[in-house]
């Protein structure tokens, strides 16, 4: 026995030492591969005499961008062009996510409807939309715009004040008025005060058991405060209707065909996935929960609010976030139909400057920031919503 104990274990049979050696091997392999690729790249770049580094960001971009939320012209720098692209990506993703969640929830609930026809229609929608590539859907909606719709002169007007033509969709909007800025401010203030009101109400209920009608007061604050602001400014009702001037519409709000095709494609595609998520979430709450809640005398609204939703949301939120992220990533397909999102602007930059490595690195970095911040939020939420076993 003593023999075995004193005998030195050879290092290849000691798991700890073996792990260290194996890891050193893996690191060396990865490092060598990286070194090989980088050295090749450097040699190639030198041969092609392409500038490297981030200096190009400060140069004049000299290309136009069709639509931009901030001021931009061809004389602006590449940096500004890229910021415009990132803002466009954020814009289309944000609007897309809001509409997708609403539409997806409606379709998901419809799928569970006791109405056979409605449920079947929702089922067909989900199956068909999930099975067609989103890029094809984008091309399809874009084609509808430039092929099926007439020019601005014969624009369709399905609803008064909205014009559909192959240049996009023109909306009638309230004419700009200083009141709008303050109304927006009022909404922000209302949202914050409702948030604090809720916290206060919950604390009071925990301490005294008195229930405060948070929902009703909250809704009336959010609607009432901007309304009061509007009235305080003399209730401006002037409307800005799009008018045909020359070959295009002037005034109102104009959305480009690219933007609408992108939004339609992304929303209709992702909504099918969101609908499945919502359906699964609602089905995950067992019927006994509803019955138990009703048995202790909760009203239907409270059953939904206090019993079903908290449990369903725990199942729904994680896959829902990944769908939102998918929508954001898929918005990069804008480059195929010419909407100036971040990828599209970065692509133009690459073509003009030839600095492909920096360009692609920027694309990846921007999307990584989006997804990492989303997953950070997810982890925070999961911790908060996780079942606390007592």
């Amino acid at each position, binding site marked *: 026995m003593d023999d075995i104990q004193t005998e030195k274990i050879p290092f290849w049979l000691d798991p700890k030492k073996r792990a260290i050696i194996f*890891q050193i091997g893996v690191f060396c392999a990865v490092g060598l591969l990286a070194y090989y690729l980088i050295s090749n790249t450097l040699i190639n770049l030198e041969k092609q005499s392409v500038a490297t580094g981030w200096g190009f960001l400060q140069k004049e971009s000299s290309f136009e961008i069709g639509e931009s939320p901030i001021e931009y012209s061809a004389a602006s720098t590449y940096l500004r062009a890229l910021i415009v692209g990132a803002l466009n990506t954020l814009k289309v993703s944000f609007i897309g996510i809001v509409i997708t969640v609403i539409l997806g929830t409606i379709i998901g609930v419809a799928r569970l409807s006791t109405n056979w026809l409605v449920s079947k229609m929702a089922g067909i929608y989900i199956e068909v939309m999930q099975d067609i590539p989103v890029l*094809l859907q984008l091309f399809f909606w874009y084609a509808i715009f430039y*092929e*099926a719709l007439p020019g601005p002169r014969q624009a369709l007007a399905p609803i008064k004040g909205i014009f559909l033509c192959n240049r996009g969709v023109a909306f009638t909007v309230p004419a700009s008025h200083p009141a709008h800025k303050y109304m927006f401010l009022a909404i922000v203030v209302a949202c914050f005060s409702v948030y604090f009101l809720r916290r206060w109400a919950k604390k009071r209920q925990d301490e005294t058991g008195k229930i405060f009608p948070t929902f009703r007061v909250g809704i009336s604050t959010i609607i009432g405060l901007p309304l009061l602001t509007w009235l305080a400014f003399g209730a401006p009702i002037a409307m800005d209707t799009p008018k045909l001037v020359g070959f295009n519409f002037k005034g109102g709000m104009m959305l480009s065909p690219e933007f609408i095709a992108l939004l339609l494609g992304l929303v209709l595609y992702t909504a099918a996935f969101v609908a499945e998520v919502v359906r699964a979430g609602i089905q995950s709450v067992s019927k006994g929960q509803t019955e138990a809640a009703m048995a202790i005398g909760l009203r239907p609204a409270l059953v939904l609010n206090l019993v079903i939703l908290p449990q369903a949301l725990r199942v729904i939120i994680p896959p829902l976030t990944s769908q939102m992220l998918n929508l954001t990533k898929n918005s*990069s397909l804008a480059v195929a139909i010419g909407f100036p999102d971040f990828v599209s602007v970065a*692509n133009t930059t690459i073509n003009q400057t030839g600095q492909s490595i920096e360009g692609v690195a920027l694309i990846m970095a921007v999307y990584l920031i989006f997804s990492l911040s989303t997953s950070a939020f997810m982890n925070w939420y999961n911790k908060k919503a996780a079942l606390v076993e007592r």
Partner: protein
Amino acid sequence: MQDMAHEIYTDDMKPPVTSVGVIGWAKANLFNGIFNSILTIITIFILWKFLPPFIRWAFVDSAWNTTGAACREASGACWSVIFSNFRFIIFGFFPYESQWRPFVAMLILFGLLFYSRNRNHWSKYLGYSWIIGLIVMGLLMKGGLFGLASVDSTKWGGLPLTLLLSVFGLTAAYPLGVILALGRQSKMNGVRWICIVYIEAIRGVPLISLLFMSSIIFPLFLPEGVTFNKILRAQVAIILFTAAYIAEVVRGGLQGMSKGQYEAAESMGLNYYLTMRLVILPQALKIVIPPTVSILISAFKDTSLVVIIALWDLLKTTQSVLSNPEWMGFSREAYFVVAIIYFLGCFSMSNYSRKLEKELSAGEQH
């Protein structure tokens, strides 16, 4: 006596007409309650408003086998855009007289897929026949042997290219994904972190950025003189991308394994490699078959993105037909048909995945 009376009684009392048959069904499923009745009526109204004009457009007023000019006369859909250019849309620039070769390759692929549907057929020999099948398919596409004329890969296109990118993409991504998943579960910190960084980074960026990388940056990575063709570069990007997603799916399966399995294997004296090969992976991979099929579905759909880096896949050949002045303006019909092709592919896969899910969960119950 009592039995007799009972029989007569049930014979006489039939359920009311309104609760059986078509009326009963409609009452129970369409008009149960005011809200549902309103919903039904609205849905029927919408269908009635859209379906007849659509059928009229697609089937009655449509042109099926005419020239582009004749199509413009017709008020309905122009399916001629598909029928007149069918072979180009499906096979792209593949030499016209050799197009039977990609056709046979696709038949082999469909045959293998169809045969593999049944899980009773899964065996070592099926694996070998897949390998042989893939080699034969590659040979049919590439040519240059057995008297087949060599066809340059720049001429590959259409549906065979789409299938090639997705099938080879998944076949190569699968082992890579399994290795990454094992790496992520590893006890060695260094290896684990490399895998985590890779998986999270790839999953965080859109496929299109990897495709850009493949078409613009990959050539810079290689020493001078060495060039890859474009299809292979896109294929590598798709493999790297899909592997990260497969790794996450497989990780789910690995986490689903109970600790007892590892301990049992260890107490038998199996080392890491044998534990994984004989005990853990066979079980873990079986659990994750359904989500793996959905990865296959999205890989199939995602191959359409190669159109952005100008590969001639199904979508690109269609677009090129549409840019021909004769067929300009018939995008809706053309995209509609391409959508049907994608739909059939994805729908049969997702149907299969659902069937498999049922089989697998039924197998676990006893």
